[in-house]
C-alpha cells in the first residue's frame, strides 16, 4: 500500500504523460510540468507506430511486447486515441535482402513474435499497390498504430481526472538541496517540493541535469515526415522497408550513398483521418526542426520506388522532430545513483510512442517500490552516468 508519495514529472510528452498516468492511478500525488504546450515536443512530430517487428530478440523484444500488452489495456481504459492493431509489413528492395529477411523471421519466430515471411506472390497479393519488382516481405501481426498526440492527451486527461495537477507553459529547473533533488523551481520563482522528481524531457533532458554536473548522453536525431492529402490511399496497411531496420541500427545497406547519409528509408503510415505519412530520415544536425529539401526529395524518391502510384498523390505538408537518441538505443529509466530524489525517463529515440506504456508503468513501480513490470537493469541510467 502506498501512502501519498508526492511526485513531480518534468515534461508533458508521451513519456511524462504515461508516467503521470501510472503514478497517479497507483495513488501517488502527481504534478506534471511542461515549459510549453502539452505534447508540444517530439511527441507531436512523430509517427504512431507501436512496433515489435523491428526489435532484436531478447530484452529489446520483451520491452516492446510488454508495452503492446499494456497499450491494449490502455485502449480499453482511456478515451479513444485512434488505436488499432492491424499488424505491419516490411518490404524488400532487392533479392539480396531475401536471405537476411528469412533469417530475421526465423530468429523473431524463435523468440515468439507472430511474424511470417511472404514470398513474391504473397506480398503482392496482400499489398497490391506495391511496385512489381518487390521480391518479398515480412508481416508481424501484433504491431499497432495510434495518434501520438491524442494518446498523450488521453493519458494526461485520465491522470488529471484522478487528481493530478497539470501545468503547461511553466518551464522549471531542478532544485538541489543537501545533495538531493527536492523538487523544482519555476521561472517565476515558485518552489515546488516533491519526494521524487522524474525528468521526462526527451532531448532536453541533458539541459535539466547539467546544473547537477550530471552528464546524460542523449542527442537529438532529427526525423522528417511528409504528409499526403486525403484521397485514395495506397493500401491501408502500415509498410516499412526492410532496410529501415538497417538504417535504425546504423548498418550498411545497398542503397545510393545519399540515402545512407540522411538515413532515409521508407515508412508509409495511413492515418485514421484518411491521409498518409511518409518517412523517414535520421540525422544529427542539432535542434533545427525545419524540413530540408534534399531530405524531402530523398524520402519521396524512396516512397516512389516502392509505390510508383504515389507520384500523383498530393504532398501537403512536411515537418520534423527530434528523436532522443542514446548510445545503446535504450532509454535511461530509473533512479540516478548518488542523486537521491531524482529519476530519469528519457532517451527513447524512435520508439517513445511504443515504449511509453512500459516506461510509465516501470517508473511507477520503481517510485512505489513494487515488483517491476520488466527488469530495470538494462535501462539503469548508471550505465552512462558515473556514480
Amino acid at each position, binding site marked *: 500500500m502506498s501512502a501519498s508519495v508526492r511526485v513531480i514529472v518534468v515534461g508533458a510528452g508521451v513519456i511524462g504523460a504515461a508516467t503521470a498516468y501510472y503514478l497517479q492511478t497507483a495513488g501517488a500525488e502527481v504534478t506534471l510540468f511542461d515549459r510549453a*504546450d502539452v505534447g508540444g515536443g517530439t511527441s507531436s512530430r512523430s509517427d504512431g507506430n507501436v512496433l515489435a517487428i523491428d526489435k532484436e530478440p531478447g530484452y529489446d523484444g520483451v520491452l516492446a511486447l510488454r508495452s503492446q500488452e499494456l497499450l491494449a489495456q490502455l485502449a480499453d481504459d482511456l478515451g479513444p486515441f485512434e488505436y488499432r492493431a492491424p499488424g505491419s509489413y516490411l518490404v524488400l528492395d532487392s533479392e539480396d535482402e531475401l536471405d537476411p529477411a528469412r533469417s530475421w523471421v526465423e530468429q523473431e519466430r524463435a523468440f515468439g513474435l507472430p511474424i511470417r515471411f511472404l514470398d513474391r506472390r504473397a506480398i503482392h497479393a496482400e499489398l497490391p499497390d506495391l511496385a512489381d519488382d518487390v521480391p518479398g516481405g515480412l508481416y508481424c501481426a501484433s504491431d499497432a498504430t495510434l495518434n501520438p498526440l491524442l494518446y498523450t*492527451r488521453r493519458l494526461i486527461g485520465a491522470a488529471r481526472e484522478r487528481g493530478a495537477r497539470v501545468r*503547461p507553459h511553466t518551464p522549471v529547473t531542478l532544485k538541489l538541496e543537501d545533495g538531493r533533488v527536492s523538487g523544482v523551481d519555476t521561472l517565476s520563482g515558485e518552489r515546488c517540493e516533491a519526494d521524487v522528481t522524474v525528468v521526462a524531457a526527451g532531448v532536453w533532458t541533458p539541459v535539466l541535469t547539467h546544473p547537477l554536473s550530471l552528464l546524460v548522453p542523449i542527442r537529438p536525431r532529427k526525423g522528417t515526415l511528409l504528409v499526403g*492529402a486525403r484521397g485514395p490511399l495506397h493500401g491501408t496497411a502500415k509498410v516499412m522497408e526492410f532496410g529501415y531496420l538497417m538504417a535504425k541500427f546504423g548498418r550498411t545497406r545497398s542503397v545510393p550513398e*545519399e540515402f545512407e547519409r540522411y538515413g532515409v528509408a521508407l515508412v508509409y503510415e495511413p492515418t485514421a483521418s484518411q491521409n498518409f505519412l511518409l518517412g523517414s530520415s535520421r540525422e544529427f544536425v542539432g535542434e533545427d526542426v525545419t*524540413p530540408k529539401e534534399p531530405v*524531402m526529395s530523398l524520402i519521396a524518391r524512396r516512397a516512389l520506388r516502392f509505390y510508383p502510384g504515389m507520384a500523383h498523390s*498530393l*504532398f501537403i505538408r512536411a515537418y520534423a522532430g527530434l528523436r532522443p537518441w542514446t548510445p545503446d538505443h535504450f532509454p535511461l529509466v530509473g533512479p540516478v545513483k548518488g542523486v537521491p530524489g531524482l529519476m530519469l525517463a528519457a532517451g527513447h529515440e524512435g520508439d517513445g510512442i511504443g515504449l511509453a506504456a512500459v516506461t510509465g508503468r516501470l517508473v511507477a513501480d520503481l517510485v512505489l517500490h513494487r515488483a517491476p513490470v520488466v527488469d530495470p537493469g538494462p535501462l539503469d541510467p548508471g550505465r552512462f552516468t558515473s556514480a
Partner: protein
Amino acid sequence: MTTKSPDQDLIICRCERVTLGALVEARRAFDVSSGRELKLVTRASMGICQGRVCHAALEALYARWFPPGRDVARPRPPARPVPFGVLPSLKGDDADG
C-alpha cells in the same frame, strides 16, 4: 469576424469540417492551453489548403481564448500542394525515378 450569437454548426475549417461547436467542445474536453494544442486535437487548419481559408477565423478565436504568445504554426513547406512526383527533382539531387 465576431458574431453576437455564434452558431455552433458554423464551419470554421472547411477542409477538415471543423465547426465552431467542435472547437469549443475540444477546448473544454482536453483542457487545451494554446492554439497549437487545439489545432492538433481538432485538425483545424491541417487540411489540404493548409489553413489558407480558415487561418484568420482561427486566429481570432485563439486570440480570444488563449494568452498572447501561445499561437500556432509557422508556415510549413510546400507553399501549395504539389504531386509527390515532382519532389525527386527538387534541388540537391539527381532524379532517378
